[in-house]
């Protein structure tokens, strides 16, 4: 699916290289891409801008991704916001933690441009359906993986 409407997609990661890269890809797709280099800055920007979708790194100094996620979910004005965690390939264990926390989904680093765009399309489409990822959605999105208990 191609989401031709301009969306606000907030990127929260302590790695400036990842932010720069994702912003470039999002600008190509004509989306607005505010950047936050820390969890605290990410919360502030989310509350200011009410993004449609957030990409949130799990491992950051200071407030980590899970703490940021918790605070974003406590804010009712951000209820509509889809939150996708950025995890590294060897952090499979975090999958359950993400889903248990009510995350919308995740994207494994390192990823390709194609992976990233597919994830955007998938989650912007879902943004009509509020709420955490269900076991059914999980199975559809990540075939071959077992949903959390």
């Amino acid at each position, binding site marked *: 699916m191609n989401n031709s409407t301009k969306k606000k997609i907030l990127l929260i990661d302590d790695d400036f*290289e*990842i932010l720069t890269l994702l912003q470039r890809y999002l600008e190509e797709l004509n989306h607005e891409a505010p950047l936050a280099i820390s969890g605290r800055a990410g919360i502030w920007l989310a509350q200011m801008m009410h993004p449609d979708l957030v990409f949130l790194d799990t491992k950051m100094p200071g407030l980590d991704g899970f703490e940021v996620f918790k605070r974003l979910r406590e804010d009712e004005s951000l209820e509509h916001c889809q939150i996708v965690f950025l995890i590294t390939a060897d952090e499979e264990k975090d999958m359950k933690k993400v889903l248990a926390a009510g995350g919308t989904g995740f994207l494994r680093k390192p990823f390709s441009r194609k992976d990233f765009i597919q994830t955007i399309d998938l989650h912007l489409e879902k943004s009509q359906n509020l709420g955490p990822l269900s076991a059914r959605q999980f199975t559809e999105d990540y075939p071959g993986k077992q949903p959390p208990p």
Partner: protein
Amino acid sequence: MIQTGTSNLGNFGGILDYSSALERTGGDESFLKELLDIYREDFVLKYEQLKKSLEQKHFEAIQRLAHGLKGSSANLALTSLQETLFQLEIAGIEKDIDKARSVFSLLEIEFQRLQDLLAEEVLNREKTADEKGVTAACPELPKTEAFDIEESIQDLIPEYLENRRKDLEKMAKALKESDLAAIELIAHRIKGSGECYGFKMISELGQEIERSAQEQNPGNINSLLKEFESYLEAIRL
């Protein structure tokens, strides 16, 4: 015969521009090999002199020795050594001891890469090299043609690589200070971003450095940092 011409295979990761070197010896491979042997002997001698000059902060000698070796490197199309020696010569002119030390450590790595290349007896390989491919003869060298860089981000690559060089310096400093937590954090980021930019090897090295930091293994980190440095130095886009 080793493949040369416009192919990356004739460049040996920036160490030796084989076709240019061969051109300078009139196509005589055995003469080129002889000249390379003489160069190696001369290099080892001058390397020791350079080391002493650095210890004594004798900038004039650093400049003179680097200039001489730069010339002989250029004659044999030893591209990366020529560039490194040029930087060392500049450091001598500028009387910048920190820069001179830093470039000198690179020089050792560059020379080792040349030694490794020659030890592989790449230059002695005849027809079989064509069959196997030169990259198979020196698998440790990065293959520029293997990079998978998105067209839309190509302008970001020089800065990305420059930042990884800075990461390398930060990690080397952290290693000296036994700050393995800092190394782990930097390596974790490198692991996450390298392949996204088209450099799979950078992600892999980041992962190995991160793991070594977690395992509190400074010796391994030191080796991996040298490998990372060689890799970054060898990338020719």
